[in-house]
């Protein structure tokens, strides 16, 4: 009896351990695969070609800067939309809204998160892009801005859901203490609850941005996919081409092991490193802040 229990225990802990390690193994394997398929680029394409401003793979122009710039401007725009709206919504749901509103809003936001991005892209191409063109009198509505708004919409449910959980898990005693000291509701939210939930809110933002930078379908449908480096003041209102859309649009037709194929994996590698960089930066920031917050609150 005792031995079977031990055996069960042994198997279960091993299984959990394996699933825990598998995440690391998968990331390493993906990284290895990207390296293997992407690194030949360095030998096949000259460095000046890679940092040139033209992306036209069928004539061997492999300038990556317009694509990197396109991804960054769309993601930045999405962050500007999604972070304030997402966090305000989370604060409203967790702190301000009465019980019945919360019971409606929380599931609704989660339903919004479940809408496939291709559906949002379709709405974007048929409604959002024409509307933006008329509203702002642009030459075309298929712009970085339209992509940013859609990506913001895709990131908001993630941010709201995770941030709301973080705010919800702040102990009731913190709020009671703040209110007992005479703080208003707003002061309690801004000075006590949000700082206490800081790491969770930061995770929410990171997951949201991660969702945005990796999103492909919606972006490919509404940003116009013109490979222009977005450095002009009005670049947000012009078409751009993102790294993800480039990979998605071109991978299907490319000959295996051709230069173009290797360059597409190289773009995947760049994308991987960018999101890794964002995650590392964010987690170190969270770690520092958490130590400070814990010192103050303890």
């Amino acid at each position, binding site marked *: 009896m005792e031995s079977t229990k031990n055996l069960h225990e042994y198997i279960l802990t091993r299984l959990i351990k394996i699933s825990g390690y598998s995440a690391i193994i998968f990331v390493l394997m993906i990284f290895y695969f990207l390296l293997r398929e992407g690194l030949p680029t360095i030998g096949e394409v000259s460095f000046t070609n890679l940092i040139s401003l033209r992306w*036209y793979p069928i004539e061997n122009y492999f300038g990556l800067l317009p694509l990197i710039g396109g991804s960054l401007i769309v993601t930045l725009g999405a962050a500007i939309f999604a972070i304030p709206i997402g966090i305000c919504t989370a604060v409203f749901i967790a702190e301000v809204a009465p019980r019945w509103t919360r019971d409606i809003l929380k599931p609704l936001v989660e339903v919004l998160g479940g809408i496939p991005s291709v559906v949002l892209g379709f709405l974007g191409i048929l409604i959002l892009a024409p509307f933006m063109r008329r509203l702002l009198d642009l030459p075309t509505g298929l712009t970085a801005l339209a992509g940013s708004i859609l990506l913001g919409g895709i990131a908001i449910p993630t941010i709201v859901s995770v941030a709301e959980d973080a705010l919800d898990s702040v102990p009731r005693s913190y709020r009671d203490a703040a209110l007992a000291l005479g703080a208003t509701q707003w002061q309690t939210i801004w000075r006590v609850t949000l700082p206490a939930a800081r790491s969770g809110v930061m995770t929410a933002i990171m997951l949201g941005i991660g969702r945005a930078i990796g999103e492909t379908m919606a972006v490919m449908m509404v940003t116009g*996919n013109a490979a222009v480096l977005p450095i002009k003041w009005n670049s947000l209102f012009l078409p751009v081409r993102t790294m993800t859309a480039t990979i998605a649009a*071109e991978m299907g037709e490319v000959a295996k092991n051709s230069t173009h194929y290797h360059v597409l994996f190289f773009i995947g590698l760049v994308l991987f490193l960018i999101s890794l960089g964002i995650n590392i930066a964010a987690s170190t920031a969270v770690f520092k802040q958490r130590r400070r917050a814990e010192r103050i609150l303890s």
Partner: protein
Amino acid sequence: MIVSTICMILFVLLSSCGHARETTPSSSHTPKISTIVNKGSDTLVNLALAWAEKYQQLYPNVEISVTGGGSGTGIAALINGTVDIANASRQIKPEEIQQAKANGVNPIEFVVARDAIAIIVNPENPVNRLTIQQLSDIYSGKINNWKEVEGNDRIIVRLSRETNSGTHVFFLENVIRLGDPNNKTLFSTDTLLLPSSEGITAETRDNPNVIGYDGLGYVTPDVKVIAVGSKPDGLFVLPSADTVNNGQYPIARDLYMYTNSQPSGAITDYINWIMTPEAQAIVTQLGFVPIEKP
């Protein structure tokens, strides 16, 4: 009595089964399974697949394998004798014919369908006609406002299919580069590359600034088609099955199949079937122009 009847029925059934089993091989033996290997142009690959699928439904004793890879790949395979039919969206080059002759292959050409590119704009756009030179200047970024081509004072927004589309390459070579192989002009960088015909149609329908192009078969009635001319003082022609077939519309090309000189019966039958109205109806469905009915 009953038992003997059942025995009789069983016996008859069994014997008839045995009889059937005996005749099956001999009946399927007479028209033996013939395999046709078909390879080449990516422009043609969907059409070739649709034809092959339909033909195999009609004639189950024929197996057709279709692969893409490009016109050059298909013709090279024909020269090496590894395929029966090569698909090409361009005519075979003289040096390829020489190589083929050296290998004992005599390529025979069949025009199996035609492909035309329609230039489309928003119905509100007053521009009705453009020359090939003007189209080249628009798409390469030399003309940026509609007023330079007798239109309104509006910025031109250029729409294109993605680079992996055969239509994109054809447009680049025959319109932007005016059919000159030494011309290295490229699309203007701010050209919008849309992943689907639907994307191009949706944006053209809505936006009076755009110019777009697509295969003739993909054009919907809610956009305006531009008449195209080779020379400013010459004829401007709207694309249609008639103007493509009589050669008046300038942005069109023939699509070819090449076989070796002595094709076997099955290959000849297949190519003859492709010329029938039934097979040419599939051409229309896939957005190409059917060849003129004889």
